[in-house]
């Protein structure tokens, strides 16, 4: 076995503050195999891949490539050893041609002392590579005009050109159509025959069983099992992925009842994104939106909040039809939105806790000439720091210096302070530690028991099972089912989210 083992990991561990992301993972990758890595969100897949590709340095353990021990300090070093990664978000320079992209960073120079590029040779060689892959493409085209799948092919050509021995593909099919997927699979097959090892990360069971040779299952940072695809089936893999016990910090005792309708959407559609989404949110409940990455749950929330315009469908608030054209109008209907990307769309990082907390409320707390009621904002901020338990040196501390959990509490307080009735929460506890999570759920529960309603998007199974009263499962922009919290299980959700 060690003969055809190209990459071997032994006892890899990695911790982040508050989380053990990987513990003692040992795993061999064989030459010329397609090896799937599966696991739920947070299982440790991406951490493992980042270690293999040199983005993270493991706390302990060794990596061996071709029987030679290596330790990568940066991605460049992994690249030189033949490990390439193709990310879910493609890294294509949009204004460069196909050939220029394939040779980006490795441009061929003309002979002589002038720093000129040998464009002809680059184009010729690019053509050769693409031909070998069995792809026909005009290598002079600007990449911007290419489809997602064509751009992906360029990325593959790029890594082939770098003589990669190991190619990591992170959710390579997430933006491809059925036909394009088949093209990709053909190429993967070819690479395999050339002796290149593919590490294939995907949520889609069907694909894994179609093209992979072996599958490794991770759960909570532990390696559960590596199996030959021939010897297993989809059910067994999924069963191994889950089976996590739901930890006690979910407040299961609270069961919210459905009485008054708060928000109802009917046939909400954005062409090409999601279609015919219909559901009702009742007063006093937490409605979960579950599904895989790319199932367009965030887009539904954005559409309700007025960020994106629906092509079709109606929104009702307390039985009255409304049109929400922008967040300002959503705010007028007392809707609040906690986005999934805290740093990009949640926080003003270099502003104070106070400035971040009161921003949406300012217009309701000013005098006739527009001066902010500074007493109100100071008091409100203090109140929330106390009530929600935000750990900060003071109201005027810069929010960048707070921990993720406390930052998230400030964002939630922002909408509570704005007297929101309906909260849209998008992955509200992503990247925050267990204790903060528990506190966060408590706040959510208090909010709904006081007559509020929450729609929560979450990719964490235990979270959505533990917190939501009802769960709607989406797949590729469509509603696939609704589950009651009593009947919902991880297995049922995964089945709805990934199988037809």
């Amino acid at each position, binding site marked *: 076995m060690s003969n055809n083992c190209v990459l071997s990991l032994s006892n890899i561990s990695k911790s982040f503050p508050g989380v053990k992301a990987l513990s003692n993972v040992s795993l061999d990758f064989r030459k010329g195999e397609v090896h799937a890595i599966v696991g739920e969100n947070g299982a440790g897949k991406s951490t493992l891949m980042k270690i293999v590709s040199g983005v993270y340095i493991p706390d302990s353990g060794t990596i061996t490539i071709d029987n030679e021990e290596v330790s990568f300090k940066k991605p460049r070093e992994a690249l030189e050893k033949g490990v390439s990664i193709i990310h879910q978000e493609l890294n294509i320079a949009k204004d460069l041609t196909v050939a220029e992209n394939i040779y980006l960073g490795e441009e061929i120079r003309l002979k002589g002392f002038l720093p000129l590029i040998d464009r002809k040779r680059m184009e010729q060689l690019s053509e050769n590579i693409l031909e070998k892959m069995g792809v026909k493409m005009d290598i002079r085209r600007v990449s911007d005009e290419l489809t997602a799948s064509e751009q992906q092919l360029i990325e593959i050509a790029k890594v082939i050109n770098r003589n990669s021995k190991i190619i990591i593909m992170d959710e390579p099919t997430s933006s491809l159509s059925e036909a394009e997927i088949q093209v990709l699979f053909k190429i993967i097959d070819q690479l395999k025959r050339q002796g290149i090892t593919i590490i294939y990360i995907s949520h889609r069971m069907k694909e894994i069983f179609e093209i992979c040779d072996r599958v490794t299952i991770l759960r909570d940072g532990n390696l559960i099992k590596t199996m030959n695809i021939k010897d297993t089936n989809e059910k067994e893999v999924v069963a191994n992925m889950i089976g996590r016990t739901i930890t006690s910090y979910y407040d299961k005792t609270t069961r919210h009842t459905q009485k008054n309708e708060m928000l109802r959407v009917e046939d909400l559609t954005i062409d090409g994104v999601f279609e015919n989404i219909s559901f009702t949110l009742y007063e006093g409940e937490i409605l979960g939106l579950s599904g895989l990455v790319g199932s367009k749950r965030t887009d539904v929330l954005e559409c309700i909040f007025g960020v994106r315009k629906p092509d079709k469908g109606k929104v009702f608030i307390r039985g009255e039809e409304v049109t929400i054209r922008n967040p300002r109008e959503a705010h007028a209907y007392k809707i609040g939105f906690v986005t999934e990307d805290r740093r990009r769309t949640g926080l*003003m990082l270099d502003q104070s806790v106070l400035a971040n907390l009161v921003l949406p409320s300012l217009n309701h707390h000013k005098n006739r000439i527009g001066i902010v009621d500074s007493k109100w904002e100071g008091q409100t901020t203090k109140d929330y720091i106390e009530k929600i338990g935000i750990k900060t040196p003071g109201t005027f501390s810069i929010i960048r210096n707070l921990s993720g959990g406390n930052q998230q509490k400030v964002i939630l307080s922002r909408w509570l302070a704005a007297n929101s009735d309906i909260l849209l929460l998008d992955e509200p506890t992503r990247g925050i530690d267990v204790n903060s999570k528990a506190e966060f759920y408590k706040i959510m529960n208090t909010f709904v028991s006081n007559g509020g309603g929450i729609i929560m998007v979450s990719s964490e199974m235990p979270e959505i099972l533990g917190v939501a009263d009802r769960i709607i499962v989406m797949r590729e922009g469509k509603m696939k089912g609704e589950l009651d919290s009593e009947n919902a299980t991880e297995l049922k959700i995964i089945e709805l989210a990934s199988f037809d």
Partner: protein
Amino acid sequence: MKQHTKRFSNFVNNNAVLIVLLLLVVFFGFSNKTFLKPNNLINITSQMSINVIIATGITFVIITGGIDISVGSVAAFAGIFSTFVAKLFPGISVVEGLAIQIASALLIGAICGLFNGIMVGYLKVVPMIATLAMMNIARGLAYVVTNGQPVYGLSNNFSWIGAGRIIETERFPLGILPNNAIFTVIIVLLMHLLLTTTVFGRHVYAVGSNEAVAYLSGVNVKKIKVLTYMISSILAALGGVCIASKLNNGQPGSAEGYEMYAIAATVLGGTSLSGGKGSVARAVIGASIIAIINNGMNLLQISSYWQKVITGVIILVAVLFDNLQRERKIKTSVK
């Protein structure tokens, strides 16, 4: 002991520009006898007033993460416009003159600013390009309406705001306080209050800190942008009428390069070009530093060519220092 040094270094970091300002005063005070004389200090205040007004306006735009390089041209155009109007009424009083000046500034400033704001806020033109266009348009119009000739023959009362002084004494028969400086102080105070105490001011910071967050929090981002460009242009126009008043004539080529002084003053004071950070006070400090350096170098009889070089170097050093500090801050916060 360690605590003390830490507190001291924090103080130095947070007030670096202010310390530089004081050091400059001490340096020029010792190296030249005239520098601290009342007459010279009056001179400095008068000289820096216009730059302070323009820098104050541009501060609003820079806090939103934008830039406005049309301020010099807008100033010139508004100045010319005010002299045109004033010429129609030969026998004006001081108050009437002031009314003409303020009305001209408000009108021209509002129009130019609205144009810039709509370009940037609604039509998504890059701020540098939108205001570059306005820079040429306003300057061009100033030349077109005057046919390239200065506007002369204004009433002496027209120069009250730009050249007049109050509190005349025996030692200072011309007066101690330049009206221009008082006017500047009033504007600076009003703008400071606007930026720090009002909802509008908060929204300006929010847009510059993180536009997405501002939008999702219900801030009318486009409107805020339009308003900041209007403030910038109106204050530039006020600066422009002050120049015309000071000269007591209209020069289509006046205020050339003032956008660079104003941006330099703002950045030197510590307002970040990436937005979200800054204040009117910082613009004032920045403008003071520039004025003092220029004045001091004049007194030391350094050639005006070298003065430009030195000013440039000082701006670079200030910005590099600011970058360094920010990097250090981010590093400590990561730890």
